[in-house]
């Protein structure tokens, strides 16, 4: 099987989806001739024409609003937002329209659209290019929020998102676009949404993460073996609705949990997971659930960026502490 990068996997999935279903339309700023600022849509306009791969004017609200109109009319639009920091004008459409049209009309109109955006820091980008505000999106009823953390899952989850009958925001870890490779067979097989992936089995502690922070989380799990700690690692993958069962099952087994995310701590999605465990898994806990997160600051620019991100060291320290508790 060919080894591809995460961004190439996205490209394969988009091409496959467009090949299989003539109603799939890709739209966004620079997605046409240029193939997207990260090259996720490279070659698609040549293959499918400028009607199905269209360069929009520079207007994010419009991109999300067009997706709503197209989706209601039976197209399967996949909108691209260049960076998560520019997604905010789309919130009006996501909150007020995309996520609730089905409910408002009691199923008469539906909105099967996907909005893709790069997610997170670590690429020494300018301001507003390093955001990880996924928790904001997970608060929206009726929406799905999915994030990939490997080429295989990027391919399978994006296909699933495009085929899903409801609106999905699909986040792509920017710093993993070209730094990870994986074997992806372009066979059109989707992966299930709403399910977490246990990417490493373990006995002593559960580490939960998503997106690019999974890289440090896996490295931490490796490092912990030196202490004789066997860590189970979960890639949450779908943040809304999230797979509580896999989380609770794992914590029931290990009795300990550290949640790792790049987003700022307060109101981050880690708080939601911790609350679920407190409500429904308290009796299995041997130590408090803790979080290793970005700080409650604006994501710093390049010079301080690495101090903001959850490091392998911070994760290892938190995990050790949990294992030594009591």
């Amino acid at each position: 099987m060919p080894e591809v990068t995460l961004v190439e996997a996205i490209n394969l999935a988009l091409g496959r989806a467009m090949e299989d279903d003539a109603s799939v339309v890709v739209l966004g700023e620079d997605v046409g001739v240029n193939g997207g600022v990260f090259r996720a849509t490279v070659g698609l306009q040549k293959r499918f024409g400028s009607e199905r791969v269209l360069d929009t004017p520079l207007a994010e609200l419009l991109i999300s609003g067009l997706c709503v109109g197209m989706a209601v009319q039976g197209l399967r639009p996949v909108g691209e937002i260049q960076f998560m920091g520019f997604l905010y004008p789309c919130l009006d459409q996501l909150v007020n329209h995309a996520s609730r049209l089905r409910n408002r009309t009691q199923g008469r109109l539906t909105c099967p659209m996907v909005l893709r955006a790069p997610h997170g820091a670590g690429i020494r980008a300018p301001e507003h290019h390093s955001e990880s505000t996924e928790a904001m999106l997970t608060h929206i009823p009726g929406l799905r929020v999915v994030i990939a953390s490997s080429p295989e899952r990027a391919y399978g989850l994006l296909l699933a998102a495009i085929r899903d009958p409801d609106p999905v925001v699909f986040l792509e870890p920017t710093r993993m676009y070209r730094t990870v490779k994986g074997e992806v067979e372009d066979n059109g097989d989707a992966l299930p949404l709403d399910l977490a992936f246990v990417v490493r089995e373990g006995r002593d502690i559960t580490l939960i993460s998503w997106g690019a922070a999974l890289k440090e989380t896996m490295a931490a799990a490796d490092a912990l073996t030196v202490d004789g700690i066997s860590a189970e690692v979960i890639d949450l993958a779908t943040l809304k609705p999230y797979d509580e069962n896999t989380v609770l099952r794992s914590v029931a087994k290990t009795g300990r949990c550290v949640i790792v995310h790049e987003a700022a701590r307060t109101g981050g999605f880690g708080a939601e997971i911790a609350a679920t465990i407190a409500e429904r898994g308290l009796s299995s806990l041997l130590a408090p659930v803790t979080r290793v997160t970005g700080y409650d600051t604006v994501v710093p620019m390049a010079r301080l960026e690495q101090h903001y991100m959850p490091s392998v060291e911070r994760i290892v320290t938190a995990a050790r502490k949990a294992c030594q508790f009591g």
Partner: protein
Amino acid sequence: MASKWMANEGLPVIAHFEVCHRNYLAPDGSINRPLPVFAADANLLVALYRTMVLLRLFDRKAVALQRTGRLGTYAVSLGQEAVSVGIASAMREEDVLLPSYRDNGALIWRGVKLEEILLFWGGDERGNNFSGPVHDFPFCVPVGSQAPHAAGVAYAFKLRREPRVAVCLFGDGATSKGDVYEAMNFAGIHKLPVVFVAANNQWAISVPLRLQTGAETLAQKAIAAGFTGEQVDGNDVVAVCAAAEEAIAAARDGQGPRFIEAVSYRLGDHTTSDDASRYRSPEEVQAHWKEEPIARLRAYLASQNMWGKTDEEQLAADCHERIEAAVERYLKIASRRPETMFDHLYADLPESYAAQRRELAGGDDA
């Protein structure tokens, strides 16, 4: 408008634009200019008249229901009945309507049942699952945010080579939003089959048009997006229809979008929660009563012997009967069970939310 800051003598003018104003019927029902061909169809004019009257009486009933606690906040069309009814009358069944919350008239014309409209304003989503054209959008509440949807819908029509048109209605306040410009700009680029209609009732709650825009007309906003905008007398249903027919036909014919500014006046409060006397004088409102669309059309119809006193009495009785019957049906519709609020959230309810649904259903999940 030459000023000392504009040294334009001798410079070539590279672009030149104009905005037309369309009117046929004067306030007293007399004719200002030859009527368009369709106006020879007495049945059509009478149908428009009947729907406008029905809408006005329906509004009155809805307000009464709201005042007695049997309906939620409601937005009347008083004074602007000609706009939504006139626009809708030029649409085909297969075209898609994207209405604003004040467009009950368009929904009624498109076959939505009165009790469905009441159900919506009575706080039940089932009112949006209406029996009008199945692809029409429900009322849009976030002002102007339906304009990008209209562009998306029209793009789908164009992509599939379907001779259908999206028709998007919004108020004058909405034209201040980027949404509307973003949508018009995109529609202009791709020559989409979409007609944008601003119902300029001159007020956005308490904010008058002059604080909404420095532009002389709203119609000229289309020029920046690369297509024609025209202003019509929104109290003249013949003008509204003519403009809509032309714009929709042009859009269907692949000539791209149009923008119609229909100028009327909101004679009533913004909604049942509003008190317009706080921000405008009775004299101002009184003056606009002289322009209103229903009396104007009635005067014209009467002058052509298309309408008389007995017709009017019969219509009032018909409307009364129809409205009362709808109200009766509306009041009999039982609320849904609480847990059904989950039923149309997703195509299939994710497992994570099933417990919350059971909780609402009275199960003991906690």
